[in-house]
C-alpha cells in the first residue's frame, strides 16, 4: 500500500517535472515551429488537398477530381516531356560538375606558391546567382555580339544557334548551371581534401608513390563522403532547376527546356491550374524524397563501417 503510494507520488512528480521541462523548452522552439507550421507543414497538406481538386482562377477549390491530375501527368505528352527534359538536364549537369570540381580541387590542393589566389578564383561562382549567371551567358550566346560563337569561329567551328535550336537549348541552359555548380563543387571537395592528414601522403612518398598513385589510393577514397554529398546536393538542385531556364528560354523552344519547375510555374502562374500544378509539385516532392532517403541510408552505412 505504502509502496503503491510512493510510486504514484513518483509518477506525479515525474509528470510534473516533464511538464515543467516542456514549459521551459517550448518558448525557445515556438518561433521556429510556428513558422515551419505556417510555411512548410500546412502548405504541404494543402498542396495534397489542392492536387485533388479543380480550382477557380484565384485558387479556390471548386470540384473534387480525385487523381485526375496525377493520371494526366503520366499520360500527357507535355508532362512526360518535362520529366524527360529534367532527367536530361540532370545527366548534362551533374557528371560535368563533379568532374570539373574534382579537377579544379585537385589542382587547388597542390602546395604551390600563389595557389590561394587560384582557390579564390575557382570558387568565385559560389557568390553568383542563377539569374545573373543566366544573363551573362545570354550575352555570350548572342549570335553577333557574343564571344562564344566568335571564339568557336577562330578554331573553325561554325556558329551554334545556342538558344533557338531545339538540339542546343538544353545544353545552353545547362552550361551556366555547370559553371555555378563547379565553384561549389571545388569548395566542397577542397575542404574534404584539406581534411586529409599529411602523414598519409608522406608514408606514400616513402613507399615511392607518385602523384597519380597517391591521388588514386589516398585522396580519392578519403574524399568519397564529400563526393557523395556533392552528388546528392547537385542532383537535388538539378531536379529543382528553374531560374536559368526561366531567364534564358522560358521553357522553349518547343518545350525543349521545359523542366518540371518551369512546368509547375506555367501551370499555376500563367494558366491558373492550381490543382494540376500542385500534383506536379508533389510528384517532384516524391522524387526529391526518394533521393534524400537514398542519401541517408547510404550515409548511415558509411558511418557504421567507420
Amino acid at each position: 500500500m505504502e509502496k503503491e503510494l510512493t510510486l504514484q507520488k513518483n509518477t506525479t512528480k515525474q509528470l510534473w517535472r516533464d511538464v515543467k521541462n516542456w514549459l521551459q523548452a517550448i518558448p525557445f522552439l515556438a518561433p521556429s515551429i510556428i513558422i515551419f507550421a505556417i510555411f512548410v507543414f500546412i502548405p504541404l497538406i494543402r498542396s495534397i488537398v489542392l492536387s485533388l481538386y479543380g480550382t477557380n482562377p484565384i485558387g479556390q477549390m471548386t470540384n473534387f477530381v480525385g487523381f485526375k491530375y496525377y493520371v494526366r501527368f503520366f499520360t500527357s505528352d507535355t508532362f512526360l516531356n518535362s520529366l524527360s527534359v529534367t532527367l536530361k538536364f540532370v545527366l548534362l549537369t551533374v557528371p560535368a560538375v563533379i568532374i570539373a570540381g574534382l579537377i579544379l580541387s585537385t589542382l587547388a590542393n597542390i602546395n604551390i606558391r600563389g595557389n590561394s589566389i587560384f582557390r579564390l578564383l575557382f570558387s568565385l561562382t559560389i557568390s553568383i546567382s542563377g539569374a545573373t549567371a543566366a544573363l551573362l551567358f545570354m550575352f555570350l550566346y548572342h549570335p553577333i555580339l557574343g564571344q562564344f560563337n566568335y571564339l568557336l569561329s577562330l578554331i573553325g567551328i561554325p556558329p551554334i544557334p545556342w538558344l533557338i535550336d531545339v538540339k542546343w537549348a538544353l545544353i545552353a541552359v545547362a552550361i551556366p548551371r555547370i559553371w555555378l555548380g563547379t565553384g561549389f563543387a571545388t569548395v566542397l571537395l577542397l575542404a574534404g581534401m584539406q581534411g586529409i592528414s599529411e602523414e598519409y601522403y608522406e608514408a606514400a612518398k616513402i613507399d615511392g608513390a607518385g602523384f597519380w598513385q597517391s591521388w588514386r589510393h589516398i585522396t580519392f577514397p578519403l574524399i568519397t563522403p564529400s563526393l557523395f554529398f556533392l552528388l546528392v546536393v547537385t542532383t537535388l538542385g538539378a531536379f529543382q532547376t528553374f531560374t536559368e531556364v526561366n531567364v534564358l528560354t522560358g521553357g522553349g523552344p518547343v518545350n525543349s527546356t521545359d523542366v518540371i519547375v518551369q512546368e509547375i510555374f506555367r501551370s499555376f502562374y500563367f494558366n491558373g491550374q492550381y490543382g494540376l500544378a500542385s500534383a506536379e509539385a508533389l510528384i517532384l516532392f516524391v522524387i526529391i524524397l526518394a533521393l534524400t532517403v537514398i542519401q541517408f541510408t547510404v550515409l548511415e552505412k558509411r558511418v557504421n563501417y567507420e
Partner: protein
Amino acid sequence: MIQSTRSFKIIGNLFLYLLLIIGAIVMIFPLYTGIVTSFLGPDTISSYPPKLFPVEFRWQNYIDAMNQAPLLRFILNSFIQSGGVMILQLITASLAAFAFAYKPFKGKNLIFILFLSTMMIPWESTIIPNYLFIQKIGWDDTYMGLIAPFIATAFGTFLLRQFFMSIPKDLYDAAKIDGCSDVRFLVNILIPLARPALGTLAVYSFLQTYNQYLWPLLITNNTNMRTVQIGITMLQVFEREQWQVVLAGVVTVMLPTLILFFVANRQLIRGLTAGAIKG
C-alpha cells in the same frame, strides 16, 4: 642527376601553373567578359569581332542602367529582404538551438526530426499554397511577404546547436547555480561565444536570400517592390538592344555579393561546406 631532377621540377611547376591558369580563365571568363562589355560604347559593342579585352571605359552605361531601371531601389529591396531574413534567422535559430543543446524535455527527438524534415521538403512543393496564402492576407508586394516564409531555418538551428554543444555544459550549470536565467545565459554568455557560427549563418543566409529568384518573382508585381534578381531580368527584357547597359546593371547587382565573397570568404565557405542541403 640533381640538376636534372631540379629542371624536372621546374618544368612540372610550369605545367602546373599552366593548368591552374587555364582553370582560372574558364571559371572567370563569363564574369570577365560581362565586366569588359559593360564598359563598351554602343558602337564598339556592335562592331565585329566581339571584344575580349577592355578597349573602352564608358561609365555612362552604369548611369544609364540606373536611369532605365530603379536599380538602387531593387538593391535596397534586396538588402531589406536579405537583412531581415538574416537577422530573424539568427534569432529563431539561436533560440531553437539553445533548447536542443541545453534543455532536457520529452519528445526532443520527435521535434528534432520535425526540424530535419523541413530540409527534405522541396520549397517548390509548398510554393502554391504559400503563394495563395500570401495573396490572401494581402502580403504580396510587401517586405513581410518577401521575408516571412524564410525566418525559420533547420540548417541554421543544426549549425548553432553543433556549436553550442561544443561548449562545456559546466558553464551552463555554473550559471544556473549563480541564478542566471536561460535567456540571460543565451544572450550574455552563449551568443558572444558563438560569434563564429553566427557569422557563418549570417553570411550564408544573406547570400541565399539575396540570390533568390522564384519567390520574389511570384509575389512582387509592383516595380518598386522588385528585388535585384527579378529587376535585372526585367531590364534585359526591355533593353534587349542595349546589352552594354544590361550588363552594367548585372555587374551592379552582383557587386554586393562579390564584395561579400572577398570579405567574408571564410564564413561563406564554412557555411556551404557545413551542409548545403537546401542548395
